[in-house]
């Protein structure tokens, strides 16, 4: 630590912060891999494990750091699934952007009234709805609405579970509490 401050005397916090972003991005990459390992009946049914670090990071980062994490999460996930140069990347980007934006706004706007469960559900819904709209206009046309019910149901259930997990994590993790800005 002292060595760090010597090397960056004026803004010794900066490398620590960027390292924290890197750690969270590494978590998204790891969880994307785990997600990819889990067999699913249809490929677009996702659990959204990689969104867990995005939820936890809400209380840790400024909007710039958060945006960087979101971008790294998107790139990492697409690298793992090997779909970075296909139309899937468009869907993933749209979904990730929508959910990150929703979660960030909810967290910072309604912090007193909304916990992680609500934030997770809102994020999942935003992501799924944006992906449905994209698939309506890019891929399937009107029949895209046929996949909506199972898609949204799955998203709601997994978001609920991830939200509960995030709640517990934030409440009990000493690592989180020592870094949390709020």
């Amino acid at each position, binding site marked *: 630590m002292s060595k760090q401050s010597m090397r960056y005397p004026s803004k010794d916090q900066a490398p620590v912060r960027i390292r924290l972003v890197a750690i969270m991005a590494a978590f998204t990459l790891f969880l994307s891999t785990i997600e990819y390992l889990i067999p699913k009946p249809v490929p677009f049914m996702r659990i959204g494990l990689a969104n867990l670090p995005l939820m936890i990071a809400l209380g840790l980062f400024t909007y710039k750091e958060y945006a960087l994490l979101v971008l790294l999460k998107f790139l990492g996930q697409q690298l793992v699934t090997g779909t970075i140069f296909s139309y899937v990347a468009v869907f993933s980007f749209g979904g990730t952007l929508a959910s990150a934006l929703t979660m960030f706004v909810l967290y910072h706007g309604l912090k007193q009234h*909304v916990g992680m469960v*609500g934030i997770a559900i809102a994020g999942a819904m935003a992501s799924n709805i944006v992906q449905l709209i994209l698939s309506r206009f890019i891929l399937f046309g009107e*029949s895209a*609405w046929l996949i909506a*019910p199972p898609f949204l149901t799955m998203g709601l259930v997994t978001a609920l579970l991830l939200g509960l997990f995030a709640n517990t994590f934030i409440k009990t993790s000493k690592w989180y509490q020592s870094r949390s800005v709020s």
Partner: protein
Amino acid sequence: MKSIRWGDFVILVIALAIVVGSYFTYGEVGGKPMVHVKVGTQTWVYDLSVDRNFIVEGPIGSTEIEIHDGQVHVVDSDCKNKVCVSSGWKHAIGDWIICLPNNVFIMIEGVEKQDEQAVDAISF
């Protein structure tokens, strides 16, 4: 520090409403009987419950089709035998009218309700 707040329940209720609402799209896509009018490679789809009179152009001329009171028939066609005209009114899912000379194919499509399913034919 942070746990479940009332906002979580509000969001949960809204999300549940969206999810439940999404299941109604199934009824709308599959349930209503629709008139599929196929001319050559093109297909037009009309609602059987909306009265309408329209003309389609085939290779030998025009075919006038009318939808009225949940039934469809061919009013007139530029073909010789007028088989399509004499087919009369059709209303059941699966019914069809065809005009081979003018390459017009009219079919009522939709999902049959359980109690509407009937035997096609009986032979003794």
